[in-house]
């Protein structure tokens, strides 16, 4: 069965992105459509490999993480752009994250999940999201946050990566025999909840973006 809580919410978010963003003026927002398509594809392939072919899907998630770090970091930085002048930090941190991932994959191999790199990536995303909030607070101009698309996108990202901190820190314990033998897969449940929060926030931000574009075009 390829449809799980994760894949369902990811598919819904992908559909919302297709409806709301396919005519968006910004290429960065339109990038969310192929990215979410890739998320759905990766998730379903991962389930297929694990449940039907009974082979490890770790290499797939390791490969996916390269795209995840590039897209999420780029989009986070895109949201910071109205407030920051230089692009130097974008390239420096992107390069640093790639170096960390390549090094961990090289040392531990493709069949061991790169959880150290994933933790570093989460920390970078959390700090950047918090920095975005700080800039929103500092900004003298008033933003109607309840319908401000970038705010909800960053909020979803912060909830997901901040919430997954404990899972990343205790990754080795969670995949150990003792925990895995529990009647319910705790890490899987946590990620289900986090995914629901993430994709709900993102879907709402896409709807806000759609409404903002429509109200703007009706004014022109």
């Amino acid at each position, binding site marked *: 069965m390829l449809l799980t809580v994760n894949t369902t919410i990811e598919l819904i978010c992908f559909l919302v992105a297709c409806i709301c963003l396919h005519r968006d003026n910004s290429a960065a927002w339109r990038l969310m459509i192929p990215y979410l398509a890739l998320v759905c594809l990766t998730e379903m392939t991962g389930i297929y490999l694990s449940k039907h072919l009974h082979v490890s899907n770790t290499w797939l998630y390791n490969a996916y993480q390269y795209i995840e770090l590039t897209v999420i970091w780029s989009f986070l930085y895109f949201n910071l752009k109205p407030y920051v002048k230089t692009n130097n930090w974008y390239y420096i941190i992107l390069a640093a994250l790639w170096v960390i991932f390549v090094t961990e994959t090289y040392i531990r191999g493709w069949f061991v999940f790169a959880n150290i790199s994933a933790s570093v990536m989460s920390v970078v995303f959390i700090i950047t999201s918090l920095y975005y909030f700080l800039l929103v607070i500092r900004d003298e101009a008033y933003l109607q*946050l*309840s319908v401000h698309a970038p705010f909800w996108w960053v*909020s979803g990202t912060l909830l997901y990566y*901040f*919430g997954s*901190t*404990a899972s990343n820190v*205790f990754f080795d314990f969670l995949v150990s025999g003792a925990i895995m033998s*529990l009647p319910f897969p*705790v890490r899987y449940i946590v990620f289900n909840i986090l995914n629901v929060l993430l994709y709900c926030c993102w879907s709402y931000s896409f709807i806000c973006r759609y409404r903002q574009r429509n109200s703007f075009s009706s004014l022109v």
Partner: protein
Amino acid sequence: MQISSKEFLFLFSLITIIFLIAPLFLIFYISLYNKRKKKYIEEKEELKKAFEHELLKSQMEVREQTLKTIALDLHDNIGQLLGLTIMTLSAVNVEDKEKAKEKIGAAEEFAKRSVKEVRALARLLHGEEQINRGLVAAIALELEWMEKARQYQVTYDHNVPEIPGSKDKETMLYRLFQESLNNIFRHAQAKEIHINLEYSNQRLLLSITDDGIGFNVNEVLKLQKGMGLHNLHKRAGMIGGEAIIHSAPGAGTQVAISIPYI
């Protein structure tokens, strides 16, 4: 020390819940802060509008005051002079050349005085423009006009360097000066008026002192009689300054207005 898988599960769940609740609180706080920001911006906008309204009102009042002075002068002064000129000229008997010469000379004198008065009025009309040239000059012109009436002995000291200030603030301060003078004319029964305008510590200080009958400041303010006094406080506050009124029955009055001025 080893912990059981159940204890670990409890600890893990607790940490995850905390890590989920923390950003939720943060998002809630930012939304709340943003609402306050909106309120602050609205209040700022309202204050700006109120200031603009009061400034416009001050400009209108300055104009009104000038027109009143002109109307009064036309009636009491120039009108009288021209009336005398007509009367003198109509009384000229061309056959009595000696007296006719005398009367024509007197009529000429009245006409000359009328011209002088008209010129002075024209200068007063330009008084509004004087504010644009500087507060010191505008006050001097107003006092020059007042001294003509010879009812008061006026002294004016000023020590304001040439600095680019705010014309809006100067207009408001000029209006406050006019209001204070009006109060003296109407109520003070003063003989001497002293005006001092000085710049110190990035503040402009204007004080208007008279030797009139004075009044009990608190009593007048309490009885809501002193709308002019309330106006002084309100308008000085609007330009970030303050107006202090010192007075006592029989001891004259001093109005001191201080505003920030860079």
